[in-house]
Structure formats: C-alpha cells, structure tokens
C-alpha cells in the first residue's frame, strides 16, 4: 500500500468520525470556555466525558487516597477528567490520568525542588508552560501534556541539560537504566548547537560504596534531598551557582549514612553509581529475581540481579509496608560475601585434625552412626541466624525423633517466650509506626539493628514531630531524641511515673514502645518485660485499636524460630552435649561444648563454628534456595533461588531429610509443599506469605507475674558493627572496607 493511499484512508476516517459526531466541535467549545456558559451546562459536559477518548489507566497502577471526600477537585488532563484531592500537584494529577510526565528532580518520596524543568506542561490560560511537579492542581485546571508548546519547552530543557553532559553513555554504568538516556530518546535533538567546551567537575570521594562521576551530574539535587530528608545526614549539599553549580560534600569527607546506597537508585543519571558494581555488568545482561533480604530482621524486599552463577548486585523492591523503596547499605552491598569462604564439599575431620573432602554418602553415614551412639539427652541442635523456617522445622523434627528436645535458635537467649506471638513481634507493624506520636526505645539502637525501621521512625519524627525517648547505652541517632537513661532503673522510674518523660508517654495518643532483642540475652529479662508491660498498661499502649508494645528482633530467622517453638529444654545442655548439630550458628559460643563432643556444622560459609566441627555439610545460601522467613513484624516472606548452588552443597532441609533417612528415622516430607504443610500445623502464619498476620493476643494481660526486680546492670550495645553481623557479611570484602572506613 502506498503512502498516499494510507493518508487518504486516514483522512477519510477522520472525516467520517467528524460526520458521525456533529456535537463534537460544539462540546469542545464548552469545555475550553466554561466561563461563557452557565454552570449547569458545563457540569453536564463534565459529567459526560468525551466518548471518543480511549480509556486511560493511572501510571503504574497508581491509586489515590482521599482523606476528605469534600476536598476532591476535578482537573482535565488532555481532555480526560480526573478527580484528585486538593493539594496534589499537576504532575500527580497527570499520573492519575495515565500520563507519565518526564522528570528528573521530582521524586515521590522527596520534597519538591522544581529545578530540572523537565516536567513542563501547558496549562490553559497560563502564559508560560508550568513546571508540573511544583504546581498545585487547581479545580477545573486544563492541563495539556502533549502539545507542541510543552514538547518544545521540554526539548529546550533537554538541550540545556545535554549541553554540559558528557556523551559517555558507552562507558557509563547507568547506561541502559538512565533517565536522561531514556528521555533524550523522546526529547533530545539529533545534533547539538553547543560549540563551546563542556564544563567538567572534580569527582568527589563519598566512600567505598558510591562512585561519583560528577561531570555527569545534572544538579537535580535528589541526592542532597535524600541525604537530608531520609538518611538524616547533612553530608551532601549544593555548592556554587549557575554553571559552577556542583553537588558535593562541603569539605572532604565520606558519606556516613547507613542508607547511602539509595542515592545510586535515585540518581537519574550516572553521576552516582555503585562502586563495587562499577564496570562489572550491564543491566540488560542481568536476571532479576525478586527475593528477601536476610541480613537483619526487617526482611527488606530486594531484587537479586544475577548473571550466570554470580550475584552481581542487589537493588530494592517496592514494599510500602516494610522498606518502602530503600534498603540499607548492608543489604545492598554484602553480596560479594556470597562468593567468598564458601563451603562446597562435605568434609570430615580425620584423626590428624585435618579436614578431608568426602562424598555426601560417607559424610551422612558418619553423622548417622554417631548420632545413634549418644544418649538422646546429649543431642543438641542450634539453628543459626540465617536459617529459614523449612530447615528449622526439619532440624527440630529430626532431633525430636532422635529423642532430643534441645533445639534452639542462636541469640534468643535462655527460655525465650515463644508462647505468645505478641511477645516477640513488632505488633504495631513497621508501617504502623508512622501513626505513633511518642516512641520509647528500650535497649535498642534501631539505626544499626534495623536501619529500615529506623528510617521509618525518622520519617515519623520529621513528619509529625513525634517524641523519642531512648533507654540504653549512648548511641547514634539521626533524629531528635531524649536519652532517658542507660539501665532498667530508668524503666522502673517510668513505670512508677516518676520520670519527666512519663508525662509525654502518658499524654500520647499512640505511644509505641520498642524493646530490643538484645534484652533476650539478659538474665533479668522477665523482670524487664514485666516493667515494660507495666509502662504499656499505664500509658494505655495496648488497646483494641492500637498495639504499641513491640519487640525489635535482630535476625532474619528469629521470628520464625519462635513461631516454630525452637526453644531448648535447658540451655545448659550444650555443656554436657555429646552431639551438637550446628545449622549455620556462627555466633553461638562453641567453647562451651565439651572437647569430646561430636560437632556437625551445616552451613554455607566457613566462618567461626566450622573450626570446631567434626563433619561439615555444605548448605546453600539464601540466594540459592527457596525459604520462608518471617520478619520482625511477623510478615512471612519467601526467598527465591537466583543463582545455582555452589559446588556440592544442598538445601538445608534436604540435608536434614537425607540424614534422617540414613539415620533410619525418615522425616515424612519429600518436597517443599509437604514441608510447608508441616510448618502449617505448627505455625500457620508462616504460610501466609507476604501477608502480615497480627498476633492474636496481647502479652501484657497473659504474662505471669514476676516478683523479682531487674538488675541494675545497664543495657549494652547489641550490634557493635552494623556492617558485619552474620557469616555472609563477615565474608564480604566490601563490608570489611565499610567497617574500616565508616564504622560508627
């Protein structure tokens, strides 16, 4: 078909359309000049949107919440009527109308800067194009996003942006996922008119994580706003004006935030990129696997980008209830630890004390032989920090069948309260913390224990001026807080109403008490918990509509371990044990194990406990297996294998299942769904993946009375190095660099 024929067809069709809809032109006229007509007529026109417009859906499924239905206003975006709440910007209204406005400086979670001018749109009766990100939508506003004027304005902005932008996309790590690259496809010119020399900017050293190529910077100031608003560090700023404008640290210093890696994601160009990932891969070579982070108890949602058998990088995934769209630096950069110090062969320690690689058959046979030789009460199992629910239930079932009741999760301390779920999860939920108006942090330093929870608290403190009281050793906070005291006696004062902070707590509408999991290790924890319960009762923190009594757990498997009841009959049993099954527990002190005990280490990293092992069974890391983890708020989430297992290693639960068969006490599950249905009989909440199931009862009413008084010993710091908390992060070189340079 010739071009002429095509054109004539198109013309014919439009003529036919015009003929079939004679009111078309007339109605247009009403819409564009409503003041000339009476309100009834224009209301009728608004009520019936033009029938020839194809339906449009909000960009990326955006939804809008109307806090007050009376505040809804109607605007028109390219002729589409859309209802938005008062105070929304033109850009947000366009998103709701299904029009994605190009932008560089605007970011949903940051304050509005309005300095990139890329989001210019035409608004009727406005003499100039307006920056839609900074312009509030007004009732009846008629926004045109695709007019020649708006396009020309954006092209002009793009030309100025590209004037000083180096043309180094082929060697830029952002290439392929660069906003500037994408938008220059639509608004860029194919030739430049700029004949002068481009400016160049000295690169800044922001530390071992963020690589800067400041010549590429377009001064959107997203990173500056992120650092001051979300991360809470005043490290980044704008220096100079005009063409001399630069982003930098005012004096030569590193960026000291635990969230600094997020500036890599929000940078729309390649000015801030990941230093460990630099020149390692192109983003289109990577396979993304949506998984869960296990380095802390938050369970941040991540995407594991892998190429072949290698994890190349980790980026956040949006989850409004847990990590929003940020992740901590530990989550983002520990991945190189997955490639180092790996156990890849089953090994047996010979008579000479040296390890020898053996086959699975031999290794399991040795373990099964030994476990039958010891008495049931001398068998002990310890699950490690990174254990998933499947392997923990398998270990518990296996050792129970061998007659032992001594299986616990490291770091839960003696006799943890596993009976009442509300006693060990964050009852308020992470997103629920935003509703709190007073926080009481007891023995927890959320900034190092759970950086994403800390970001949430900071968000609340900034947004609503919520008060924060802190009981514990002196610690680093990035928001205003009151240091009330260091030990349990401050809690007692609060419980008795003698402390000055008590009035703030008791006047609070939604007080949130957050108790750190470090308390689990204390001998007087029951006494402390009863004091905390007293405070909660007095300030009315636990109500049907609000549960403000929270535990902040430390490790990924902790909530699931307590859900599954991994509680030892007696913690002392390890001192008389003859057979110790260590499932990745590297922080358990194995010096207490008697010298003649037989230690089986099952895990993925040669970290600490392997050195005491008699048999090593290599397991897969969380990036290589499917596993269920419950985070500190009790939300069960699953990891998905992103890369193949290394060497001869196997999934944790499969090893235990195989061992049970060799030991002739076969466990009754052969696949993941069977083991999950077994989990369902113990802790059904672990099967409700990606859904948070609140605890049924609150603790304070059900806990037994504790007569004893808490010790005077002050609370201690639980996590002394944010960057190295488990076997994977301890194996990571990047984390080692971070702890050397940035350790707080």
């Amino acid at each position: 078909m010739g071009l002429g024929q095509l054109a004539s067809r198109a013309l014919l069709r439009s003529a036919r359309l015009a003929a079939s809809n004679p009111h078309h032109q007339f109605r247009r006229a009403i819409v564009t000049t409503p003041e000339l007509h009476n309100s009834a007529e224009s209301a009728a026109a608004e009520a019936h949107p033009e029938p020839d417009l194809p339906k449009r859906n909000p960009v990326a499924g955006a939804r809008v919440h109307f806090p007050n239905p009376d505040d809804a206003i109607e605007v028109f975006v390219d002729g589409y009527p859309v209802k938005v709440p008062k105070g929304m910007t033109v850009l947000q209204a366009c998103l709701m109308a299904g029009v994605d406005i190009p932008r560089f400086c605007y970011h949903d979670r940051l304050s509005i800067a309005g300095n990139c001018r890329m989001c210019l749109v035409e608004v009727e009766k406005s003499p100039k194009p307006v920056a839609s990100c900074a312009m509030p939508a007004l009732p009846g506003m008629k926004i045109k996003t695709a007019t020649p004027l708006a396009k020309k304005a954006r092209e002009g902005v793009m030309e100025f942006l590209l004037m000083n932008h180096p043309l180094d996309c082929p060697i830029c790590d952002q290439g392929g996922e660069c906003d500037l690259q994408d938008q220059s496809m639509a608004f860029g010119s194919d030739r430049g008119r700029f004949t002068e020399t481009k400016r160049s900017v000295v690169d800044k050293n922001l530390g071992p994580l963020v690589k800067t190529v400041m010549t590429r910077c377009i001064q959107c100031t997203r990173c500056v706003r992120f650092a001051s608003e979300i991360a809470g560090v005043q490290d980044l700023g704008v220096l100079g004006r005009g063409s001399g404008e630069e982003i930098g640290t005012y004096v030569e210093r590193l960026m000291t935030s635990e969230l600094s890696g997020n500036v890599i994601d929000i940078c729309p160009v390649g000015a801030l990129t990941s230093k460990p990932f630099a020149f390692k891969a192109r983003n289109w070579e990577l396979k993304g696997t949506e998984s869960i982070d296990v380095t802390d108890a938050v369970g941040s949602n991540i995407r594991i980008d892998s190429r072949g058998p290698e994890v190349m990088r980790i980026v956040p995934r949006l989850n409004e209830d847990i990590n929003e769209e940020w992740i901590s630096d530990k989550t983002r950069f520990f991945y190189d630890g997955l490639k180092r110090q790996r156990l890849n062969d089953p090994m047996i320690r010979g008579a000479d004390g040296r390890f020898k690689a053996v086959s699975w058959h031999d290794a399991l046979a040795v373990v099964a032989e030994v476990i039958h030789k010891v008495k049931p009460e001398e068998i002990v199992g310890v699950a490690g920090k990174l254990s998933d629910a499947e392997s923990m239930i398998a270990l518990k079932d296996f050792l129970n069948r061998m007659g032992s009741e001594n299986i616990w999760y490291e770091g839960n301390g003696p006799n943890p309260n596993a009976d009442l779920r509300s006693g060990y999860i964050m009852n308020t939920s992470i997103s629920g913390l935003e509703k709190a108006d007073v926080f009481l942090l007891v023995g927890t330093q959320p900034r190092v224990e759970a950086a994403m929870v800390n970001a949430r608290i900071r968000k609340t403190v900034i947004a609503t001026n919520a008060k924060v009281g802190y009981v514990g050793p002196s610690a680093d906070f990035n928001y205003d807080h009151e240091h009330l005291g260091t030990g349990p006696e401050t809690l007692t004062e609060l419980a008795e109403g003698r402390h000055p902070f008590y009035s703030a707590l008791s006047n609070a509408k939604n007080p949130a008490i957050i108790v750190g999991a470090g308390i689990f290790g204390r001998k007087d924890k029951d006494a402390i918990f009863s004091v905390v319960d007293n405070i909660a009762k007095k300030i009315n923190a636990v109500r049907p509509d609000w549960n403000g009594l929270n535990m902040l757990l430390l490790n990924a498997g902790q909530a699931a371990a307590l859900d599954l009841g991994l509680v030892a009959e007696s913690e002392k049993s390890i001192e008389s044990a003859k057979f110790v099954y260590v499932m990745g527990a590297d922080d358990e002190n194995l010096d207490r194990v008697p010298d003649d005990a037989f230690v089986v280490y099952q895990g993925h990293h040669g970290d600490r406990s392997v050195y005491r092992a008699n048999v090593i069974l290599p397991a897969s890391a969380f990036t290589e297996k499917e596993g269920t983890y419950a985070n500190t708020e009790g939300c069960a989430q699953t990891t998905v294998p992103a890369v193949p297992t290394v060497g001869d290693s196997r999934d944790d639960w499969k090893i235990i299942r195989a061992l049970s068969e060799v030991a002739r006490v076969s466990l009754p599950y052969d696949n993941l769904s069977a083991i999950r249905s077994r989990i369902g009989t113990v802790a059904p909440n672990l099967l409700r993946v990606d859904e948070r199931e609140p605890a049924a009862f609150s603790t304070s009413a059900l806990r037994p009375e504790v007569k004893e008084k808490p010790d005077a010993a002050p609370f201690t710091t639980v996590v002394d190095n944010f960057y190295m908390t488990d076997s994977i992060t301890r194996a990571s070189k990047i984390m080692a660099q971070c702890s050397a340079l940035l350790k707080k």
Partner: protein
Amino acid sequence: MASVVRGALKLIKEKGIGGFFREIRNEGYLSGLLDGNLMQTKIHNIGATVVGVDKFGNKYYEKLGDTQYGRHRWVEYASKNRYNASQVPPEWHGWLHYITDHTGDELLLLKPTRYGVEHKENFSGEGDEYIYHSKGHALNPGQRDWTRYQTWQPKKA
C-alpha cells in the same frame, strides 16, 4: 636442460663429489624420487626466479612468461619431508596467493613490533603439547578458572 647439467657440474667442481651428493640429499632430490609433489616443484623451479626466502628457509619462486597465469608463484618448503601450507608465514601468504604483489620482505616492514606474535605453523597431529587449545579448553595448561566463588580453606597455609 643444458643449464641444469652446467649447474650440476659447477657444484661438483665447488664441493667435490661427496659434497655434491650431500647437497643433492639436502635439497630433497632424493626424497623427490618418492615424492611426486616435491619432484614436480623441483622441475618447476628450473628457469624460475627466486623472489625471496623467509626466515624459515622457504623459497618463493616466480616464473613469468610461459607459465599459466595463476600458477606462476609457488613455494618450495624448507622442510623436504614434512611440509604443509601453514608453514608459510603471514607476510608471504598474500604474495603467494596473488592477494598482493608486495613480497613478504616488503610486507614484513609493516609488521607491528609491539604485539606482533611470531608465526607458528600448525602442529596438529604432532602431539598435544604442540596443539593450540583455547583458554576455555580442558587441555589448555593455563586454563581459565571459571569458578565464580572462593572456597573456604580448612587450614590457612
């Protein structure tokens, strides 16, 4: 034919009768008795001009005039018993195959000194140590390690 006899007589005069026979053997006339290719080359050589000799000793002949076009350049390999086409170095390859009229000696001047690798003939069938294996090949002694992870070492050496 007369020139051949004259040349032979001259050689006998210079080297003596023993030297003459040694020369005959070294030049491959004896193996040529069993090797038709070689003998044909030797016969071809009569009256042709030697254009050049490369560093391996291969002689490059050209005979213009009464030879068929396209058969007027040839090589007599230095080795008389084990010869193959891969013994021709790249600088002579172009001349020999009528790709260029520049002789190998002229082209050698263009060879980059910094990264130009010495020519090596193809040793296929001569034993594994002579055969080129790519770096991914199992028989390459300097085979690349494709393991993407580091294992834990039980004892630090």
